[in-house]
Each structure stands twice: as C-alpha cells, then as structure tokens.
C-alpha cells in the first residue's frame, strides 16, 4: 500500500513553495492544524497526514510491534517524504511528533531542510538524576485509565462506519469527536509509546537546523523541558510563545503560524 494512502496524506498550499510537513501528536489527528494551515499555505507547500492508528489512516496497517516505538512512526515519515519526493521539507512536529521528527532527521539528515519542534518533550517521566519531565509512571497509568473510561463515541459497532465511509455526509452526526476518536486498543499503545519513550540522548545527534517552540504555560511540556531540548540540540533556537496549553496551533494559531513562517523563510 502506498504511504500516502496509508497515512491519509493531504497536500495543499503553493506548489512551488518550500514543503512544510505538519505532524500531529498524541490524541487527535491532522485537523489539529486547521487554524494554522491557511496562513502557512499562502507561502508554502503544506503536507498534512495522520499517523497510522489516528484519524483516517488505514487501520489495517497498524501493528502493535511496529507502532510500539517512535522509530515505526519515523519510518512512516521518511516513506512519505520519499514517495512524494519532497525536496528538503521542513518537518513541523507537535508534541510526540517532535521526537518522531528528531529520529527521522537522525536517520536521514540530508532528507530534511529544517526541523520545528512544537511543545516537545524528549522524556515525560522524572528521573533520579534531577531531570524533570513533569510526570511519574503512575501518572501515565492514570492517563491510560482515562483513555479506558472515555471512548469519545468509539464503539466496535461504529468502527467500520468510521473507517469505511469517512466522507458520507449522512453520517455527519455520527462523527462528533471524530478528530480525537481512536480505537481504544491503539490509543493505549500510542499513549505508552508517547509517554514512556526517552529520547534525551538523541537530541545531540540532530544536525538539521532546528527551532524549538514552547508555550509560556503548558501542563504537558513545561518551559524547563523546552529549554532542555534547546540546550541539547546543537545550534538550535528557542521561541517561547505567549500562549497557554499544549496545543498553541489551536489556542494561539496566529503567533504559532508566524513563528513557523519566519523560521521556514529565514536563513538556515
């Protein structure tokens, strides 16, 4: 199966613009970028996709082994780049996708023009040596419980409808919460992969020009973590947005788009 179908790739914006690939994080799908896409599309060629297991990706491509590590997702990103023959794209990864971008850029450094890491965290769990990721392993178990109690409209009976007929308007009312609706089994694996991965030692291996963007207030990736990422990646820059929450592309779309635009358009 082609990667662009598997990952529900959508390309928009200026055909002759620099390719900017937007990768969503854990929880929802590519719709999370909807408020920044119009601004970015004016200047760039915007490539959107859903990670396998999320949104309208091909669920049959999901295997617990492949997607139990971030490398599986990084391989998908590289496959999409190759298949679309993207010329040194700028990879913008939100949340866990920032680490997916880091892994892809270490694997094939020449593939990417630049990296933008939006609210990144290389490790969510505190360790004994003083690193503060913000969470304990028990907190992550609590999140898994929340996932178990909230199916957001997912049910086994609905699954074929959601998967098979995403564009049938008569099903519109059934699609409430669809942006963040995931098969609970897949969500559980992705949650573990997201929150239990530790990529701190990978950061120093990044050679692609990198911008770190974090928010002034973020319960998931607090400013200390953004500063840590910036300090570890050689030559990276840090922009802290005057925004609250983990999803500035939704809560502060304008300044988020501006930060991305000026970095993409600026000198490497």
């Amino acid at each position, binding site marked *: 199966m082609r990667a662009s179908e598997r990952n529900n790739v959508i390309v928009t914006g200026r055909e002759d613009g620099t390719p900017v690939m937007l990768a969503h*994080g*854990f*929880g*929802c799908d590519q*719709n*999370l970028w*909807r408020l920044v896409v119009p601004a970015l599309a004016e200047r760039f060629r915007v490539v959107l996709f859903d990670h396998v297991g999320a949104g309208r990706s091909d669920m049959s491509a999901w295997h617990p082994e492949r997607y139990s590590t971030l490398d599986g997702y990084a391989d998908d990103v590289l496959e999409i780049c190759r298949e679309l023959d993207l010329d040194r794209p700028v990879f913008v990864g939100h*949340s866990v996708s920032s680490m997916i971008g880091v892994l892809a850029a270490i694997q094939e450094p020449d593939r990417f023009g630049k990296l933008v890491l939006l609210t990144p965290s290389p490790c969510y769990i505190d360790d004994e040596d003083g690193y503060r990721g913000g*969470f*304990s392993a028990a*907190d*992550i*178990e*609590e*999140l*898994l*419980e*929340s*996932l*178990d*109690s*909230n199916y*957001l409209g997912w049910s086994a009976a609905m699954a074929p409808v959601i998967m098979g007929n995403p564009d049938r308007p008569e099903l519109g009312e059934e699609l*409430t*919460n669809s*942006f*963040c609706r995931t098969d609970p089994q897949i969500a559980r694996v992705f949650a573990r992969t997201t*929150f239990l991965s530790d990529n701190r030692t990978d950061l120093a291996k990044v050679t692609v020009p990198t911008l770190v963007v974090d928010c002034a*207030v973020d*319960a*998931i990736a607090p400013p200390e973590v953004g500063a840590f990422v910036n300090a570890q990646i050689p030559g990276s820059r840090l922009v802290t947005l005057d925004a*609250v*929450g*983990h*999803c500035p592309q*939704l*809560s502060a779309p304008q300044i988020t788009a501006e930060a991305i635009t000026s970095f993409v358009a600026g000198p490497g």
Partner: protein
Amino acid sequence: MTADSGPVPRQGGAPDVSQATLFGELLEDSADDLYEHAPCGYLSTLLDGQIVKINKTLLGWLGHTREQLVGRRRFSDLLTVGGRLYHETHFAPLLRMQGELGGVALEMRTAEGTRLPVMVTSVLKTDDAGRPLLIRTTVFDARDRRAYERELLRARQEAERDRERLKRLVATLQRSLLPPVLPRVPGMEIAAHYHIASPDQVGGDFYDVFPLGDDRWGVFLGDVCGKGAGAAALTSLTRYTLRAAAAHDPAPLKVLRTLNTVLRQEYTDDEMRFCTVIFGLVVPDGDGFAVTLASGGHPPALLLRADGGARYLQTPEGLLIGVLAEARFSAVETRLGPGDTLLLYTDGLTEARTGDGGRYGDEALLAFAGGLAPITPPAVVAATAELLGTFGAGLDDDTALLALGVPARSADQV
C-alpha cells in the same frame, strides 16, 4: 404519606390562584440561587482555562473557597494528573475544534486530596462574530456511575483473560490429539498440516502415522462429528482405539469394524457419536510401498502419480463409523512407486465456501492437485495449505492434510 404532611395539591383541573401563589413562593429562588445551588457543578473559564466563575455546589464538592480558585487556578489544575494529560491531549483540542464536548469522564482532586469522579460537559461561548469568548462547563458527581463502570470494565478484562486461558487450553488439547512429530518411515516422505478454524474450540479432525512392527506402518486421518469438549473426547477414544485395534490385527477393514463396535458400545442411540476415518496399512514393496486403504464415510484419498496423473482412490461402500451396528466398509489397494504421492484430507477442504457462493468440491481439488503432479508430500501439503488460506472466511471448518510419498529416483528428477 400522612394527611398532615403539608400542603396537598388539588386533584386535576387548572391551577387556581392560591396554587400559583404557592408555586411562586416555592420558586422564589432567583436565577442566581439556581446557579449557586444547582444539583450540578457550574464553572466558567477563560479560553486558557482560568476559572472566572464557579458555583457553590462545586465549591462544596471540592472543599475550596471561591477566593482560592477564581482568578488563581485553571480548570485542569483541579484534575488528577492523568486527567490533566487527557484534558490537554483530547478534551481541550476537541472543545476548541467542535465548540462543545459532552459526557467526558474525569477525576477532580478535592482540597483534602481525595478524588471525585465526575462527568464533564463543556461548551464554548462565542461572540456575535463567532469568536470564542469563554468556556462553560457543567460537572456531575459520577461516583456511583464510575464505580459501576469500573465493575463492567473489570468484568470485561476478566472475560478477556478467560478467553486467553480458553485459547491456550484449546491449543494444548488440540496438540495432544495430534502427533507432536511424525515418525521417520525409511524410504518414505511424510508431511502434514492442521488448520484450526476457531481458537475457542477444539476441532474434530485428527491424523497419525505409527509403526506396527515387522516393518509395517499404520496411517489414519479422520473427522469426528461436532466440536468442543465432546468432540475432543471422541477423537481421543477414536485415536487410541485405532492404534490398539491395529496392533491386534492391522487389516484395515478389521480396524474400522473394531472402531465401529467400540463407538456403538460407548455411546447410546440417544447421544449417538460418529466419525469418518480413512485407515491405511503401509508395507514396503520393492522400491516403493503397498498401501491398503479402508474408508468409513471419508472423502477418497487422492493419488498423484510420478507421471503427472491424478485420480481419487474410491472406496464406495464405506459408511459413517458409529452409526449402524452392522456397518460395511470398503477397501482399496494401491502401490506407491518412486515419485508417487498420496494425499489424505478432511472435508473442510472440499466443503470450503468459494467466492461465488458454492463449495470448493472434489472436481476443483482434482484439477488443482492434478496441475501440481508430480509433486512431493511436503510440496503438496504446502500448496494445499496455501490454497486453504485463499478461502478466507469461506473456510469455517477444521482441516487436516496428510501426504505420504516415495522420493523420486534421482534419475527421474528433471
């Protein structure tokens, strides 16, 4: 209710003036009072989650004062850490994208540090131009409901664990009904395959190859009626009876007659159990083997010749075993020379449903195997197992394959 327990509403008819006054007095509570003491928690926040208004009901549940929360805390600060992660990754983005979100289960932390399970519904209030202004949230106490849901969740997890246990048990039992390894018969190649239709149920197909002494070998393959524990018991009885009977007298017709007698003795007419079996006696014969096959109601064996020919070895009179006291079975003799292969199978193969709604059938199998001949036992078993895979959901029965053959002389090989 007692007669003097307060004002008694008039029965039927339109409310009169005094009743309207009474209701008015009861409904004295203003919108403010309704807000503050509603039977659910109310909370208004700025878009960044900062609490700007909260009702007394929710303050009471949480054990906080208004001053501690308004302008100082965010909604997500009131959640457990896991709930906060969920809020940031699912709740807040969804609310922003679709403007409302209902029935989300979260846990709040009270001032004392205890947990309060709640159901939360939020809407985004917008101005006339559609710009979001603030978030309104209702909070319901969900302690009872969540306790009940946890029971359900636990029951489901237990059911899943039981199913895993059952699968393991079935797999173990199934293995015990098949030979762990096939014996090495000098001058003969043997291959087998077993397709399990359902991981939850022991199937009723079986096969075996075993030595009878004096350089003779017994071979059988069969199918008992039904599935599950009853079928497993019948399979076990059938296997051991076949082996014991053959040790006593290996003539295939006699072996099947003994099995018939045993099944008739073991099961009464009310709970009749039967099976189909093809039993073979294999004896070395020059550069090949003489094979005598007897069948009790079983699909005919398929003979694939070294010269590329293929035909069924019909055993026309064979009846199901275990049905009639005086059963008749029929036997057939053949010889396997170098390059010949004999394929035994159960009807899962020929009864598989094909895409056009029909059954796969004897003719299709003959054409399929005929196209492969000459072929070695491992190759024909592998090709047929692959064929089984192509039926997908059309293959709803267990299927056993067993092939015996004599290796081609090296001079015969192309």
